[in-house]
């Protein structure tokens, strides 16, 4: 199953990894377990078993269809394309041209990781607009996935040069190699615990599978970055040690996890012992140490041998960021979901959660108001706890790093406790950065950070464009500066304020909004359908909208900083975008009647990346054109009014359109066709 078969001109079709089948069998068993336990062990009434029956049915169906999918799926990588055939009843053939591939990302849910599998998602950018389903290979063995990614992303030197020359000399030092014997034995066993083995030790698998694989599994990430990580890991709190180690080397990763979750009974200690690494007999901590050692050695080896994969860690999870991620109304949504699930769960055991809660309330007898407050707070805290758990499982061990690739560099994010995700964003496709600060939490510095880049799905649950979890704006700005890598960071430069007229426009709109609602309610009030009290409420609404108008005005700002055009606006969520000027495709200037009266113009810079349009609302109309002209260097020049001296407004970045401007100059006065053709 080695992807090296793909080297010849007519490569053979390959199956997905056979371990998918085993995972599905295990999955079916797991799906049946709770129902069986409830029925035979707890002795629940069959009428209460409906949820479990549904769970079992869904699990069996999912596993069964997954097996069918495995049976009918083939893929291959030719010189030109990646091809996949799949489908049981409807056969689907899908080919993606290799030069169109923009991202190859891997992720693994817990069951994939237990089996040493990785799901590979190949992105060619089209999904962004057409809503096409992604090109997914679910699943390959971890080393195959890494090799595939390296092949497709042109990181040929990652697997290839390492393989023969640099990596093998290090092999003895690499703990992966030390696992070798373990792995061999474990694979034969086929028992669950044993099957866990190979996956942590996936490099060993490589060892046997063939020379080329060995290095690329553990090492690409392993050496350089694991070492780098260790340095700062000491500074970071407890959890990171483990998580960092897990990330550090793919091979070591599952060990940390397995050790932590399965505990000592699983046999991981002796596996490690056999592996030749001295480890205490206990579980997680020992393995962390071990993994850390692995990273350290790998790092040492990597630096000594080939510093080809240069990894600069830009950010790492700080556990206290969790406070930013548990507040807000979503905590209540989360609480609602959790309580609903809990309600059904305990009801299968004959407990009515509602009765329990009302019973508690009766016993406490706080009075209606206090009870409501207590319930509100309790539900909020419950939801926040759920959010915290969700935050940590998603972002555990988060690491944002810049990785050198064949074509340049990529921004890589790795995160996840059970489901691990790795997202690589080609920096050649990066066009800027966007920081969002929600209005209600701006005092606390809450912010979200996204990169503006082409070819990433914005509406994906994986949020590939989000490079940092919700956290303090100081960190967001610092990391953004590091990502952009330009000296005065566009996100910290002082912005030009907008004219007072922009405030007046917002005040007008606030008033107008209130007035329109009042107008629509006037007739019903007169007819007596709606109580007049509503109109008084509207009167209370008016000052509030005025206040929001001021807030919206205060968030306005713009400037041009080096190669970036910076725009800040937004009421509910103030967003500051820094967009590369050479990425601006379309420029639009808008003026409504009100704006025209107030002397304002909205300039929108449109680009292929990110949300597509980044607007700078309500500039002074006098400077709008020169700002727009600076934002898209050279684009507007042919259309600028000739009567005024044109002060070559573009201070273009060297590689932008500047060269093509001089030649066209179909000066507006000259409508002759040939005027546009100098050569």
């Amino acid at each position, binding site marked *: 199953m080695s992807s090296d078969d793909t080297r010849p001109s007519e490569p053979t079709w390959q199956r997905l990894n056979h371990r998918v089948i085993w995972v599905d069998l295990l999955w079916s068993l797991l799906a049946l377990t709770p129902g069986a336990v409830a029925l035979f062990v707890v002795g629940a009434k069959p009428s209460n078993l409906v949820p479990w029956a549904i769970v079992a049915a869904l699990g069996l169906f999912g596993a069964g269809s997954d097996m069918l999918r495995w049976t009918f799926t083939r893929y291959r990588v030719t010189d030109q394309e990646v091809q996949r055939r799949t489908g049981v009843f409807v056969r689907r053939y899908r080919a993606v041209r290799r030069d169109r591939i923009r991202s190859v990302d891997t992720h693994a849910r817990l069951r994939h990781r237990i089996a040493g599998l990785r799901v590979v998602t190949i992105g060619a*950018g089209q999904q962004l*607009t057409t809503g096409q389903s992604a090109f997914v290979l679910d699943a390959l063995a971890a080393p195959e996935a890494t090799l595939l990614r390296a092949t497709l992303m042109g990181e040929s030197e990652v697997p290839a040069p390492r393989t023969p020359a640099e990596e093998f000399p290090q092999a003895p030092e690499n703990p992966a190699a030390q696992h070798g014997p373990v792995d061999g034995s474990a694979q034969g066993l086929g028992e669950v615990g044993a099957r866990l083995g190979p996956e942590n030790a996936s490099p060993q698998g490589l060892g046997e599978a063939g020379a080329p694989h060995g290095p690329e599994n553990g090492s690409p990430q392993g050496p350089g970055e694991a070492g780098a990580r260790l340095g700062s890991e000491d500074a970071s709190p407890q959890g990171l040690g483990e998580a960092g180690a897990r990330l550090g080397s793919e091979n070591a990763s599952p060990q940390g996890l397995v050790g932590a979750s399965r505990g000592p009974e699983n046999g991981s200690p002796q596996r490690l012992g056999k592996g030749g690494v001295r480890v205490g007999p206990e579980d997680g901590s020992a393995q962390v140490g071990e993994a850390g050692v692995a990273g350290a050695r790998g790092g040492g080896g990597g630096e000594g041998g080939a510093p080809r994969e240069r990894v600069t860690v830009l950010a790492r999870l700080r556990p206290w960021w969790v406070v930013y991620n548990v507040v807000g109304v979503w905590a209540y949504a989360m609480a609602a979901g959790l309580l609903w699930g809990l309600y059904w769960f305990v009801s299968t055991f004959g407990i009515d959660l509602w009765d329990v809660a009302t019973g508690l309330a009766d016993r406490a007898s706080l009075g209606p108001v206090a009870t409501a407050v207590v319930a509100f707070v309790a539900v909020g805290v419950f939801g926040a706890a759920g959010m915290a758990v969700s935050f940590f499982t998603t972002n555990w061990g988060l690491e944002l790093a810049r990785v050198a690739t064949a074509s340049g560099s990529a921004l890589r994010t790795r995160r996840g406790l059970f489901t691990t995700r790795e997202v690589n964003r080609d920096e050649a*496709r990066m066009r800027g950065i966007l920081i969002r600060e929600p209005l209600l939490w701006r005092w606390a510095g809450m912010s979200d950070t996204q990169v503006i880049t082409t*070819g990433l799905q914005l509406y994906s649950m994986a949020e590939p464009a989000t490079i940092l979890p919700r956290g303090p704006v100081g960190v967001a700005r610092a990391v953004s500066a590091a990502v952009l890598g330009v000296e005065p960071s566009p996100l910290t430069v002082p912005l030009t304020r907008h004219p007072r007229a922009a405030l007046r426009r917002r005040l007008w709109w606030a008033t107008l909004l209130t007035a329109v609602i009042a*107008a*629509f309610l*006037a*007739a*019903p009030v*007169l*007819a007596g*359908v709606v109580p007049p009290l509503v109109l008084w409420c509207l009167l209370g609404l008016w000052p509030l909208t005025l206040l929001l108008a001021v807030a919206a005005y205060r968030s306005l700002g713009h400037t041009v900083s080096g190669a970036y055009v910076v725009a800040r606006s937004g009421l509910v969520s103030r967003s500051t975008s820094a967009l590369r000027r050479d*990425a601006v*495709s*379309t*420029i*639009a*200037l*808008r*003026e*409504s*009647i009100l704006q*025209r009266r107030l*002397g304002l*113009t909205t300039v929108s810079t*449109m*680009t*292929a990346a990110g949300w*597509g*349009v980044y607007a700078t609302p309500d500039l002074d*109309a*006098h400077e709008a*054109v*020169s700002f727009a002209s600076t934002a*898209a260097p050279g*684009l*507007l020049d*042919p*259309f*600028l*009014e000739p009567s*005024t*001296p044109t*002060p070559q*407004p573009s201070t273009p970045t060297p*590689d932008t*359109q500047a*060269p*093509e*401007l001089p*030649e*066209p100059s*179909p000066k*507006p006065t000259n*409508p002759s*066709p*040939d005027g*546009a*053709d100098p*050569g």
Partner: protein
Amino acid sequence: MTIREETGKAPPAANKEAGPGTPDPTVGRPASGRWAAGPGAPDAPVRLRPPQNGVERRAIVWWALRGLTLWGGALAALAAVAVFWAPSRPWLAAPIVALAVTTVAKSLVEPWWRFAVHRWEITDQATYAVTGWVVREWRVAPTSRVQTVDAVRGPLEQLLGLSTLRVTTASSSGAISVAGLDKDVARDAAERLAAVAEITPGDAT
């Protein structure tokens, strides 16, 4: 970016590009007047000049018909509800008045206003259009970023021999639509622009 450097080579090959080219009855229309002025007061250091070409006079009919069918239809539907379902009347009073005003504006005011505002121009380097009425918009898209060029004709447009030129870039919202062109003018412009854009290498992002 390499895309940019390459585009520098593109224009020479596009000799035949002749701006809007084909005779257009409205070309001679002076580009001055209230609605033609670019954003920014006259004393601004720079401002956008209006594009060279206006749109067909027939477009006025098209806009009027469009406003009537769309908004007049909605008005009729709402009025029908108010007539046949008495309890809804207090709620529908304001919407009906608003819709009536909108219909009048869309079918009587908007067409003329748009006709005065709408202008367009295509050069080797860029597509430039001014559109809108209450909200006016100046849009410029570089030819090097153009991905598709379409001449779209809806049923009403076919009736009037009109066509809408739609130029899209890789940006999801960066499209430029020039409505109310003669169908031959639009087709020629689309073909020329496609010819220029096609020879531009890179994937235009």
